[in-house]
């Protein structure tokens, strides 16, 4: 059988997640197309980050299914999700703060490399060769995100914007098919946002789809090919930025029309 509906990169169906009595996700269903930048927007508390955490295996959902490239995605197993090709960044930057910038990215290569303890202990040729390729790739990625000169610095001494870039480089080091960015532009000024937008577009052009959470609606509408809107733990709209902007349900969610 031919892999069904290969037009979708990711399909989430009926994802539900409760914390005690709180229903953070209430049956989220959405689909991402390959080679696109998709914005995940919604009011505060709509469940965006929770959805990210379910997607990347940090939370195990109470119900629902996730298909990635047509195959079910393992639930609640972050390392397997990364191995399958989904990498992420965090809303409150989570770098390996006391390791060097280069080492941070090298850790990202872990999942695509093999050398084990014996290789390390005996310094086999294969291990040394692999270590060289890890280093080379890590340097390339630092150049790619524009912090190539910072490799030897300690991660938490970087400027805020550069830390965000490093987080992206680290995620890209896992060779993802889908890059999930949780508020990548938070705390950036307009010029930094514009440059970040360029980087994200380049990532898409180079073959990695991007899913991003963002509050700045204007910036998202300019950047993204598709938008999904979450409200009260449900996906209430999906489509092109124009279509979503004119959707009455979205307007209601954001402006609270008829909420009273």
């Amino acid at each position, binding site marked *: 059988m031919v892999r069904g509906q290969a037009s979708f990169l990711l399909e989430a169906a009926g994802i539900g997640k409760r914390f005690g009595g709180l229903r953070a996700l209430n049956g989220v269903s959405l689909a991402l197309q390959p080679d696109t930048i998709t914005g995940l927007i919604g009011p505060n508390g709509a469940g965006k980050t929770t959805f990210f955490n379910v997607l990347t295996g940090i939370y195990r959902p109470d119900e629902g299914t996730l298909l990635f490239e047509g195959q079910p995605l393992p639930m609640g197993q972050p*390392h397997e999700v990364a191995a399958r090709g989904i990498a992420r960044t965090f809303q409150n930057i989570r770098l390996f703060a006391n390791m060097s910038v280069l080492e941070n990215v090298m850790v990202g290569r872990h999942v695509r490399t093999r050398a084990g303890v014996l290789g390390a202990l005996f310094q086999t040729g294969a291990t040394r060769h692999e270590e060289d390729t890890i280093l080379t790739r890590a340097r390339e990625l630092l150049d790619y995100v524009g912090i190539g000169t910072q490799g030897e610095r300690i991660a938490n001494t970087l400027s805020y914007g550069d830390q965000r870039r490093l987080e992206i480089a680290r995620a890209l080091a896992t060779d993802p098919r889908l890059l999930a960015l949780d508020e990548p532009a938070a705390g950036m000024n307009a010029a930094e946002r514009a440059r970040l937008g360029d980087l994200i577009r380049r990532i898409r052009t180079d073959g990695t789809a991007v899913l991003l959470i963002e509050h700045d609606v204007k910036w998202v509408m300019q950047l993204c090919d598709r938008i999904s809107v979450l409200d009260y733990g449900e996906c209430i709209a999906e489509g092109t930025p124009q279509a979503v902007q004119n959707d009455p349900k979205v307007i209601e969610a954001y402006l609270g029309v008829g909420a009273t």
Partner: protein
Amino acid sequence: MLLGAAAVLLLVLPFVTDAALGHGWVRILDFALLYVLLALGLNIVVGYAGLLDLGYVAFFAVGAYCYALLASPHFDLHWPLWALLPAGALLAASFGVLLGTPTLGLRGDYLAIVTLGFGEIIRIFLNNLNTPVNITNGPQGVSLIDPLRIGPWSLGQVHHLGGLEIPIVVNIYFLFLVGVLLAIVLSRRLEHSRIGRAWAAIREDEVAAASMGLHTRNLKLLAFAMGASFGGLSGGLFAGFQGFVSPESFTLQESVMILCMVVLGGMGNIAGVVLGAVLLSVLPEALRAAGGLQQDLLGRVWVDPSNLRLLLFGLALVLMMLLRPEGLLPARARQRELHG
């Protein structure tokens, strides 16, 4: 140049010590080297992977009893060294895996308490597995253990090299020294490998590490098993050196002392760990002298030296964590972590 000087120093040290202070002090050096080996092993667990193992001596015990039972008249088995040491390391690592598998997926402090318990339990077993089937010979321990032997060379007897007499304790010194140097090289290689980086990442941020595709539980298990195998190996060397093992050698105090060496010297830094181990294994001898000093000065021993030793270790652990958590010779990353 400096390296050459250090090599010469290490080479002549046992002979000079032997000539100046006698066999007893060379023995102390031997034990210092053994503790360095143990501390380097625990450093993989605590320093690299950031896991607290409070029962490390249990793995030491497993290695020692493995050697003792397979190379003594107790079962009338006399395995060769090349089989004994790996067997002890492997057995200790298996115990590590057995213990780590249920606990390492959970919060870090569960490991601490489980290892603490394991350290005690293993002693209960060693003490009691003499009836109804005599496996460990109970509290009496196992004696007449085969000395360490490399091929035709028994390290348990005096050798002559040209005109030079090499006493047993010096034989042992060189064997342990080789072991320590090997352990240092291997530790360094591990630290700067893909696996070592992964351990550091897990120590820094476990959630982020998992999201980058690191199988955190298995990697921690690997560190734990590696540390355990170092412990098992040292245990074998200990048994062969002593010729006698009993449960009494493997108390919680020993575990605490090894931990103290790692913490005092500097978690994660090989030079620091070596320094810590040497300091703390020679210090008790100085304290023993202090016992004599009390006798001379005050007419009686007011504070039992062994008591004082533990008290000081406990205090050192607390004060180091409060005042200088990175240790005497800190690892670069650790210093930042602890003061960040």
